[in-house]
């Protein structure tokens, strides 16, 4: 159960990070560079959290 929870959450976070990159691109278009860089940080951090959860899910499998 824990394994599936981690896997689902990891997938959600990794795909969800795409939304932050989308917003980052839109703020770049509006020349709001500070917001764009902050959203880039958010996107990379979220993808990193997803990767950590995927790692935990992998260990749970074994």
């Amino acid at each position: 159960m824990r394994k599936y929870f981690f896997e689902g959450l990891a997938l959600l976070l990794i795909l969800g990070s795409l939304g932050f990159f989308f917003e980052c691109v839109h703020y770049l278009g509006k020349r709001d560079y500070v917001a764009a860089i902050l959203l880039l940080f958010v996107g990379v951090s979220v993808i990193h959290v997803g990767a950590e959860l995927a790692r935990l899910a992998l260990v749970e499998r074994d």
Partner: protein
Amino acid sequence: MALPLALGINLWIVAVALPLGLAAHARALAGANILAITVVSLAPLVALAVGVSQKRAAGQALALLVGFPVLIVAPQALAAAEVTARVVPSVAMVLAAASLLAFLVAVAQAQTRAERLAEGPPAAVRRLAQDPVPSRWRRRLRVYRGLAAVAVLFPAALLAAVDLSPSFAASLESSFGAQAARAQALATVGVGLLWIVLLRAYVLQPLHGHLQHDRDLLAAMEADRRHARHGRPRPAFYLAVFVALAAMVAVVLQRAK
């Protein structure tokens, strides 16, 4: 080499001859050096002919996989951006990209066939026993397919947001005015570089380690197992959560100003 030759000529028509004809029709070539245009336009055909006639695989690959594609995009790269944007419809770019892809696949397949012919027929051919695929391998295949899907989905979605989104184009137009096309090109390059960094860090590096049975990776997995027995993630997880939350709060505060 008949198929690569046909696809190469097709690509030349789509990416060089057609835009050149449209530019001539729109009188966008006024003042340009006719000799230079002729040389730049015919250079890809020369590279194609050299590549097709080459016997050595290395020379053929250099001419067809490097020289020809570079020379094909050279005329449009050398032309003024405004002229290209005004004369060539955006659909033609998609057609040219598809033609280039088909050409590269055809050349790669032709080279593989030539290599097999050079090696000669195998001494004996025997069917492998068709045992059912073990669940471990089915699981691995699912992971590999998932990685392939992510490798396509992420850059495609980001490039679509930059190059096909009308709202993003409108934002660029209002922010940069006449420089909007250049800003869009810069954003496309930035998105491509971002994806290369993410792909390398989060897909290729772990996959490479996994495929090579890397000792460092095995040691890291053992450390992860020990961590998992405690039921707590690594400190990097908490750091990433903190950075994400802090950056989100900063965005909200910055937008609220």
